[in-house]
């Protein structure tokens, strides 16, 4: 066989091997890799390169070596799932470095980073004052996870005692110009509903690049033609505005009418409408 045919076959063969065996390496993102993962990766890379360029000589030996390495990795993965000891050994335990606002010096020392490094890592997380930290832990891959003190955490609606509605994930109903039926059905809608909504907005179906529907059934559309300006969906704001107007109308009716009984009734109706508006408002704020 010609040498270059040999080379092509070898390289493609190794490529295919890698693709097939890769799943055992798991799904960790690059930032979550430990030193072990890194070295392991280099070993695999070197082995493959050497085999590809026939530096190893005997192809069978080369590929066997690679497969043994993969096998070992597979066994380790399995062990890590089953045994806590194995997990701690390969991935290391997290080490607590700050607890209740105080730095645990011995633990910090055991991680191998200095106080200066610690402060630097905190700064990278936008924390410039050690006093702002309640709890910090160093993960197995060297990243520091920080829990700021409660008063330094961003405000949440819960803190403000503001009631908010639960929102579900929005569904993508049109992608790259194609209508997706499954998400529509998940929301309990169909193509005809989509047609009607699009006609209401006055655009052509084939002009739509992307469309999303939120949990309240509100449609947001992105067109291929970027020159067209679409009005932002305002049904929810309109609803609140209309309710406010109705309440105001009732108040003015109560002032205009001479009938004493209806004066009272109009005022009562205005109050009812106000109650309804207040109940509804948090859910229309999405």
């Amino acid at each position, binding site marked *: 066989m010609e040498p270059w045919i040999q080379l092509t076959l070898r390289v493609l063969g190794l490529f295919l091997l890698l693709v097939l065996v890769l799943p055992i390496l798991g799904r960790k993102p690059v930032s979550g890799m430990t030193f072990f993962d890194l070295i392991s990766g280099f070993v695999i890379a070197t082995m493959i390169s050497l085999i590809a360029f026939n530096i190893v000589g005997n192809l069978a030996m080369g590929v066997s070596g690679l497969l043994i390495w993969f096998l070992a990795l597979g066994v380790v993965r399995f062990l890590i799932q089953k045994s806590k000891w194995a997990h701690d050994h390969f991935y290391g335990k997290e080490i607590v470095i700050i607890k209740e606002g105080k730095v645990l010096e011995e633990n910090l020392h055991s991680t191998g980073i200095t106080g200066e490094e610690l402060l630097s890592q905190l700064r990278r997380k936008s924390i410039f004052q050690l006093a702002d930290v309640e709890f910090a832990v160093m993960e197995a891959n060297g990243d520091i996870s920080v829990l700021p003190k409660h008063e330094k955490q961003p405000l949440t609606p819960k803190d403000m005692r503001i009631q908010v509605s639960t929102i579900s994930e929005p569904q993508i109903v049109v992608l790259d110009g194609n209508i997706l039926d499954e998400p529509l059905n998940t929301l309990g*809608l169909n193509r005809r509903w989509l047609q009607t909504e699009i006609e209401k907005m006055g655009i052509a179906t084939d002009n739509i690049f992307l469309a999303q529907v939120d949990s309240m059934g509100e449609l947001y559309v992105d067109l291929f033609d970027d020159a067209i300006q679409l009005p932002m969906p305002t049904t929810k704001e309109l*609803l609140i505005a209309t309710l406010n107007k*109705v309440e105001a109308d009732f108040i003015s009716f109560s002032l205009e009418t001479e009938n004493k009984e209806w004066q009272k009734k109009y005022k009562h109706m205005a109050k009812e409408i106000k109650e309804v508006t207040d*109940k509804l408002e948090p859910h229309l704020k999405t």
Partner: protein
Amino acid sequence: MTVATQVKQTQAALMGVEATIRTYQLHHPNSDTRKLMEECNAGINAVLDTLSIRIREIEYEEHQFKGL
């Protein structure tokens, strides 16, 4: 006496609101929110009933505003 057209406009607006809330109620994934919207609509319907009584009274007293 309040002008009948104004009252009828308010009635129409309120009916529109009720319909929109009903649409949202059908679509919302959260059952508590759906219940809340049902309650809101019940309140709105009560107001609409009272309002229609008043409209009938006005129409009775001022025949020219009858209709629609």
